[in-house]
């Protein structure tokens, strides 16, 4: 025990003497919360579009007006042929071309049928889908309105029965992306602290050669490991508290569940992440390598962990794989606790899974770590 205390003292002294450590602990969460949560929205606003109105009728002007006033669209060009408008795709002037053909109004009045063409720059598939949705809705609404307006209200028409769909978004009624992003960012923060700092810290001792000096001392394996990991465990938990506080102050992110549950879950989760950091350091010789491997693992874990992309939108095999990804359990749980107020009994599965990982990873890391080669 006394030996561990000595190691801890040394580690803390070194951590706080490191000039890049304090900014990392305090500035990183701030920057991430400020930039990430503002940058990361899948909402589409301010869509630039080009109008190609070959009809120049009351109808076509009315429809164009509706696009202008909808709020999502910004008129940034008028062209008189589709080919010219497509040039604008190439120069990135607009994302949507609204093409109203000649005789748009005449066809509607005479044949009861006419069409508009939407050309969407679909490089970004998801955004294109949304643009399609928004514009189709406008056209549909326009259609309904002109039926009632221009077609004499002859009750002769047999109106079909309507299914009326209402929806309510629970836990985040306005679909505020920040409420969604902030817990995800906290997960990323805690994870980065765990893996990167631990991995690089031990790799650093290897690189400068002090690890050898430690290996000839009677320090026991478990003492070394506890002494090395504990400081980052504390820092990780502190980081979570700091991030939660910032989220609260800046974005008023709710915290419905119990902090005790959240922190104990994070504590368990951090053990597995620290273990991964330790494992990384056992297979590397330099900080550069440690950092790269940590980065590599993190990218895969984060992308596949459902922090910023929903697990439900992955193919089957990928959804099954997420079970082996501690991040996916943790990011799911942190949203449940913060946004839904889920308690311990709702999270038994996550607690069990994360404890299992922590145990396995630490055991493996301890076995892999050798004082003698």
């Amino acid at each position, binding site marked *: 025990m006394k030996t561990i205390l000595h190691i801890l003292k040394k580690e803390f002294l070194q951590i706080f003497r490191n000039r*890049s450590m304090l*900014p990392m602990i305090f*500035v990183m969460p701030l*920057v*991430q919360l400020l*930039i990430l949560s503002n940058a*990361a929205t*899948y909402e*589409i606003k301010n869509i*630039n579009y080009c109008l190609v109105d070959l009809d120049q009728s009351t109808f076509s002007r009315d429809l164009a007006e509706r696009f202008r006033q909808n709020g999502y669209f910004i008129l940034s060009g008028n062209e008189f042929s589709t080919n010219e408008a*497509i040039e604008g795709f*190439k120069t990135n002037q607009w994302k949507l071309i609204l093409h109203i053909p000649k005789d748009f109004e005449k066809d509607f009045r005479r044949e*009861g*049928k006419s*069409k508009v*063409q*939407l050309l*969407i720059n*679909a*490089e*970004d598939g*998801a955004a*294109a889908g949304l643009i*399609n949705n928004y514009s189709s809705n406008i056209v549909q609404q326009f259609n309904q309105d002109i039926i009632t307006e221009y077609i004499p209200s002859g009750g002769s028409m047999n109106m*079909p029965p*309507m*299914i*009326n*769909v*209402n*929806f*309510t*978004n*629970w*836990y*985040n*009624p306005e*679909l505020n*992306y920040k409420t*969604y992003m902030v817990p995800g960012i906290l997960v990323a923060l805690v994870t980065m602290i765990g893996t990167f700092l631990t991995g690089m810290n031990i790799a*650093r001792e290897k690189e400068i050669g002090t690890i050898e000096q430690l290996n000839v001392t009677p320090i026991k394996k478990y003492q070394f490991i506890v002494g090395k990991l504990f400081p980052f465990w504390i820092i990780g938990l502190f980081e979570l508290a700091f991030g939660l506080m910032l989220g609260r102050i800046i974005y008023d992110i709710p915290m419905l569940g119990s902090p005790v549950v959240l922190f104990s879950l994070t504590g368990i989760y951090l053990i597995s992440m620290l273990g991964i950091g330790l494992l990384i350091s056992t*297979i590397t010789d330099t*900080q*550069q*390598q440690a*950092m*790269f*491997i940590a*980065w590599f693992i993190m*990218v895969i874990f984060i*992308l596949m962990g459902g922090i910023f992309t*929903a697990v*439900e*939108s*992955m193919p089957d095999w990928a*959804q099954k794989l997420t079970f082996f990804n501690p991040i996916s359990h943790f990011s799911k749980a942190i949203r*449940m606790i913060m946004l*839904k*107020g889920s308690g311990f009994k*709702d999270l038994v599965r996550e607690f069990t899974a994360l404890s299992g990982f922590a145990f396995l990873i630490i055991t493996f890391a301890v076995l892999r770590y050798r004082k003698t080669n």
Partner: protein
Amino acid sequence: MKRFLGFLVKEFYHIFRDYRTMVILFGMPVIQILLFGFAIRNEIKDTKIAILDYSRDNVTQEISNKILSSGYFILSDNLFNEKELEEEFKKGTIKEIIIFEQNFSENLYKTGKANIQLILDASEANLANMVMGYTNSILKEYQKEISGKYSSPPSITTEVKMRYNPELKSVYMFVPGIMAIILMLVSALMTSISITREKELGTMEILLVSPLNPLMIIIGKVIPYLILGIINAVIILLISANVFNVPVSGSNILLLAETVLFVITALSLGILISTLVNDQQTAMMISLAGLMLPTVMLSGYVFPIENMPVVLQWLSHILPAKWYVIIVKSIMLKGSGFGYIWKETLILAGMTIFLILLSIKKFKIRLF
């Protein structure tokens, strides 16, 4: 010149002998692009939902079946009263609850109007949006079916053409982004760390007192990463063309030339960082927080730039990656020629010259 070649060979040995880093440098782009192509999609599949059916008649049964047979949803639970809703959501497995009002079919056919209530777990806002959209379109489809039996009012159809990416695949979006990120990583991050490493270990001093010109030393350190970066870019393009059928529709040579330009920009950033700091950890922190993070977030490859707050939009202008992503997208997806991207190229070139001049200045102050 011979001395310089010797030095260059040493640098190559350093990098290529470190097989772990090599594996990662080449494995990373491959795995990332495969993940984005295969695993990360913007559609849903087998999302768990619950149904609370107060009516239990033929119509609600039919609608439920339609929803559950779509492949997007699977039924996790049939609920019986509203008190259960909260409990269900708290467990976190189901994402949506569909509620049919009492006497649904009676209301529909007698009064011409019936209500369905969708309750979504919006703690994952993005998913909630998608789930709602999918459910809604199935319901609309059903609406069309029943309306078909009645005479139809005059209608306007919309004809939608998705240019450049008709199947709305997300790989189209990610390939240019991943190229930018990987090149940043290899060029800026690796260079800054490898130079600071020599500083930290004291070997830089030995190199500097050698008869090699300091400029030569830097060039020698940088060339291997330039080559690595280009190899990486080619690998990414090969995968995207052969595995995901996203070929380069413009000129390959132009794309390669622009890539070399971007790699040089990134390398000069790396050199600049290494002239400013003295240890690897700081170099890494600056590269990760100052370069990688903004590149991922603000270059428009994950999240569209137009939707960000104005401040972030301004910020994105000073990122080389943003311009590079625009260039790559134009050449790859739209087949644009140089005439369409000269502006972006000029910006990138300007940034590079500025960075190189700045690092030469810093380098001199430090060393002489």
